[in-house]
């Protein structure tokens, strides 16, 4: 158990009569990519919000590196080491690519209360931001306004901002969303190399990417985890086939 970085225990959340998530217990171990898959409405987005702090849970706990973060705010969980990316890019579109990365570096430094020297002139922040942009291949467009980026580049920037945080665990909400075949392949290769740095809880619809990347997969249906296992186990699971991949798949 010592190598579990992020874990949820019996996490539940209802919206009125709808039980969006029910008793979800998932472990994210060091060095792994743990994919969460499920049909639309299975509760994946709710789960991500419960883990990252955007939604309060009705019951259950979230532990990050052995610490109970269930009662913490989104920003406190980020400071505790949670690096989250959004399904729909949440970037400051009017700002430059570098400024978006600098914002992450600033959050990581935990010192936003500086009012005189320009953020772009702070060597530590800049080095951290630039390093992250280089890793995802956006260094060349660092000074462009974010709104001018292609969809694929925005997805990369989304990941770059998470990188600047040097998180203990990544929680990624559909990083492949809207990417073409080539973009998906580049992102898949990148995430593949990232798992050694910090494990990734990956919510993804792109099954090719999931089967290529995941060490383990949890299948979510109607708010419940119906199966957790390796790619091979999930592929042959009857339950999963019936509930999710569809009979005959």
């Amino acid at each position, binding site marked *: 158990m010592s190598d579990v970085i992020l874990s949820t225990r019996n996490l539940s959340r209802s919206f009125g009569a709808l039980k969006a998530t029910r008793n979800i217990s998932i472990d994210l171990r060091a060095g792994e990519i743990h994919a969460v898959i499920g049909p639309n409405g299975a509760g994946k987005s709710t789960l991500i919000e419960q883990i990252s702090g955007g939604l309060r849970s009705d019951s259950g706990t979230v532990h990050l590196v052995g610490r109970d973060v269930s009662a913490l*705010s989104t*920003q406190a969980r980020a400071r505790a080491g949670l690096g989250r990316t*959004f399904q729909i890019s949440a970037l400051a579109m009017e700002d430059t690519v570098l400024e978006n990365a600098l*914002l992450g570096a600033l959050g990581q430094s935990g010192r936003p209360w500086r009012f005189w020297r320009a*953020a772009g002139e702070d060597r530590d922040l800049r080095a951290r931001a630039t390093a992250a942009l280089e890793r995802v291949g956006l260094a060349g467009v660092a000074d462009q306004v974010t709104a001018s980026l292609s969809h694929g580049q925005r997805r990369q920037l989304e990941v770059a901002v998470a990188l600047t945080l040097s998180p203990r665990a990544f929680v990624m909400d559909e990083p492949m969303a809207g990417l073409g075949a080539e973009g998906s392949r580049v992102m898949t290769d990148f995430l593949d190399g990232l798992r050694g740095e910090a494990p990734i809880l990956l919510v993804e619809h792109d099954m090719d990417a999931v089967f290529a990347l995941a060490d383990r997969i949890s299948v979510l249906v109607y708010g419940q985890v119906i199966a957790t296992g390796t790619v091979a186990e999930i592929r042959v699971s009857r339950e999963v086939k019936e509930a999710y991949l569809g009979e005959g798949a």
Partner: protein
Amino acid sequence: MIGERYINGLVLAGFLAVPIWALAMDEPFTITLATRASVLAMAAVGLNIALGIGGLVSLGHAVFFGLGGYAMGILAHHAQTHAALDLGFLAIEGSRSMPVIWITAVTVSALAALLIGLLSLRTTGVYFIMITLAFGQMFFFFSISWSAYGGEDGLSIYVRNGFPGLDTLVPIQFFGLCFTALCAALLLHWRLRASPFGMALNAARQVPRRVETVGLNPMRLKLLAFVVSGAVTGLAGALFADLNRFVSPTMFSWQLSGELIVLIIIGGVGRLMGPVIGAALFVALEHFLGGLTDFWHVWLGAILLLIVLFARGGLIGILTGKDGPRV
């Protein structure tokens, strides 16, 4: 299209050139107009920190303008009547010294902004506008009914307050003081905008959830912006009161809050010099058109309409060919 920094330089140069020309031509009233424009510009520069960078559409900034004005009025009133302000446990002597008045104005308006911000920032959008408006109205009606300081009639201060080494009654000297204060406010906005704080605040306006996700608290960023913003507008209020040697409840009126927003929109929201251009145009229209017709606001309204419809970046946006931030 012209680079924004050249436009900024030109605007400031123009702002200086007009009163210097007026001095040479012996037109003291023009110097007073330039002083009025500087002070209104400064009040709007204050608001622009909250509105332009932080996206906080405050329709209650007259609160801080008025508090600055009344800080001046009350202190100077007690000095001119030689009666200390008796709070029961503490007697405060009046003051005719601008530095003392300024410190008071900044402190009082910053504190008010902290309290108002703590309550209003729980809301966003139209509710934020309404709650700041409500605070403005509370101060407005309080000042009307506060007969100790003139109530509805306001409070006249017979001699302009002093500043060490200057004769503030000489128009060009008082202009110099107000213009310097405006430049200080602009310097503050400029440094703040580029600083880590300003970058985070600017992002909090656009995508608050991103700011949270990197571990920063958008609420605190906005609250501090609101306090700094209120303090700058408060100082402008103290100068405005000294310019007119008169304070009245109109300084708290919601029309004034609205005018400050109009100045910013005309010049360019979030643009460093937006409020300065806006204030210069406003005072010029008020003077020239106001001399022709009592209904000069119609023309101001027409300009505002054109800018909102066709030039979201304001006059600075037209000149630079770049839109400003979206609020």
